[in-house]
């Protein structure tokens, strides 16, 4: 496999954009655009995968790129958009931590993630080793996003972007997992979202809102 500096630059740009998108998600309050960001993340992921596939000539990467495209760029966002329209949840309420705070935490996390990725990157033989840190950062940022959101919907988006992070990590560290696993993972994600869809409707008909503060009755401190 021979990487020209151009490919690397492209890959790294993708990675950087991914990180940027994660930050955007962290700060974004409109659910619709949150979903769009998710789609964008998917697209970047897809692009990176294709590039790798082309360069390394590992064919199963084409497949996973296709999966990504189908699932994360088209499928899920479409599904989510439909849900949003059906359930009329366009805005998330004020997140638990205000934007600057979230940003700050995010930055710290990123630093931590990069530090974390250092030893792995040193071992990695892949051209994309530097991207591992980004992957970790994306995962942790998604985590924070889930923590700070109050609407079920946006939590799910966070969850999905975490999946993206994982995927990116797998790719940049090892050029993707064995096919069996990738398929399984993809299937699980799909099912998960379907289940979530069902969930939304049930929650909705029970509480007629997707606000999470309805889901705080099972507790010990009373």
């Amino acid at each position, binding site marked *: 496999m021979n990487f020209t500096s151009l490919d690397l630059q492209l890959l790294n740009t993708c990675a950087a954009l991914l990180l940027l998108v994660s930050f955007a998600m962290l700060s974004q309050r409109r659910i619709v655009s949150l979903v769009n960001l998710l789609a964008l993340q998917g697209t970047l992921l897809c692009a990176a995968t294709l590039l790798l596939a082309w360069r390394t000539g590992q064919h199963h990467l084409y497949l996973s790129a296709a999966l990504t495209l189908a699932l994360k760029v088209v499928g899920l966002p479409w599904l989510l958009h439909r849900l949003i329209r059906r359930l009329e949840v366009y805005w998330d309420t004020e997140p638990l931590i205000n934007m600057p705070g979230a940003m700050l935490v995010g930055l710290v996390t990123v630093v931590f993630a990069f530090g974390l990725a250092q030893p792995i990157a040193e071992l990695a033989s892949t051209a994309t080793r530097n991207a591992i840190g980004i992957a970790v950062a994306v995962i942790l940022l998604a985590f924070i996003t889930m923590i700070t959101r109050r609407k079920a919907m946006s939590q799910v988006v966070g969850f999905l972007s975490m999946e993206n992070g994982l995927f990116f990590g797998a790719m940049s560290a090892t050029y993707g997992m064995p096919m069996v696993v990738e398929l399984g993972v993809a299937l699980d994600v799909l099912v998960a979202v379907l289940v979530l869809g069902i*969930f939304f409707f049930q929650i909705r008909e029970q509480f007629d809102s997707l606000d999470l503060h309805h889901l705080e009755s099972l507790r010990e401190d009373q």
Partner: protein
Amino acid sequence: MEFAVLLATPLGGSMLLALWGHRRRAAEINVALSLVTFLAATALTARVIGEGNLLTGRDQFFIDPFNVFLVALTAFVGLTTAIFSRPYMRVEIEHGRLNAHRLRLYHSMYQLFMAMMLVALTSNNLGLLWVAMEAATLSTVLLVTLYRTPASLEAGWKYFILCGVGIAQALFGTILLYFAAEKVLGAEGVRALLWTDLAAVKGELEPTVLSLAFVFLLVGYGTKVGLAPLHNWLPDAHAEGPTPVSAVLSGLLLNVAIYAVVRCKVLVEGSLQSSLPSNMLMGFGLLSVVLAAFFLWRQRDIKRLFAYSSIEHMGIVTFAFGMGGAVANFAALLHMTVHSLTKSAIFFAVGHAAQKAGSQRMEDIRGLLAMNPTIGWGLMLGSLAILGVPPFGVFASEFLILTTAMKQQPWATPILLVALGVAFAAIFGRVQSMVYGEATGRRLPHQPALLPVFAHLALVLLLGLYIPPYLAEWYRAAARMIGGG
């Protein structure tokens, strides 16, 4: 052959019941399927005892002493739970808490859940293991929310999100593992995640990466084990789901999760040559035991009570595996067995009790002994057993664990003992006031199926007084395989 049957039966069964599950004989079919699975499991066990470890399905599946006894246990508890759920669910329908197509969902998901657990247990491929775990989570989410009550939805949501996130961590851990393995086993994809191959070369795996991987795996699968402070989904899910589901969650799913953790620990310890993983396990274990013991004091809901007791016992098991060594592993395996038997038995009794009293709140449940002696004795003896009172098997394992702790981790012993004492006071006081006293509540329209309860308790009693040699040998082999200490 047996193996194919073992996996195919529940998978096919879930399909079948997805179509048929609302008809009259669905429950019986459910039982029959579980029975077949159980028979297959016993046959498989016999074969493994006879011929030793077994690799199959292009090495994607692997049976060794460690997982075969869990397979047998899972199949057995699955069967008894199916038997128990037959009358239970009928009553639920008559009380109007369920309707036919929910029942269909229940049956189909139950089988799917079984299938997924069996896959997770037997798969040799860590990636596949992950997939199966996720699938098992998804199927149980649907089971937990079966009643569609606000509480059950909340429980289901928390279960889903927390375990989902957790399992995502586990996936990243797996990726790192793969990454490390690739270095050693070469990039020819498929084999690099096979546990057998990894175990063969675990010495050469890259320590730093593996330690990172282990953190992610531990946090991931640990969430499903219900280790404090990742346990918060567990009491809700147990309390709000239908009782058979609580029984299998406590009795089986936790075991499978622990199984995953231990498999990973073996690899990591092999490469790290340090006590780091063991210490992490012991830390989590102790924390869970202590926290659970104190939370027990605040419980008002009977199923939550026993959910916390499950956390406590998972903590004990984790601690034991953390200590490692032949005796501790042996004790931990034994404890997994007796705990899942006892706890599911308790949940059966609890289910009937709650149905009689028409409430899960403990102050509404009174005088079970007067109302229906079998339920009363079931609950009383079960609780005594789970509290580690001899001659029940739980005491045997706790005896071994405690004595080993005195030997290897003297500092931890007093903590464990205090926690056990607190838990005893909390659980026993409540159980006593439910079992004794004057009866309240109405007659049960159906004769409760208490055969499972006493079958389980009898087994636990047996294990407390006499562990059959081949079983002991089997445990020992598994313990040796896990090693550590």
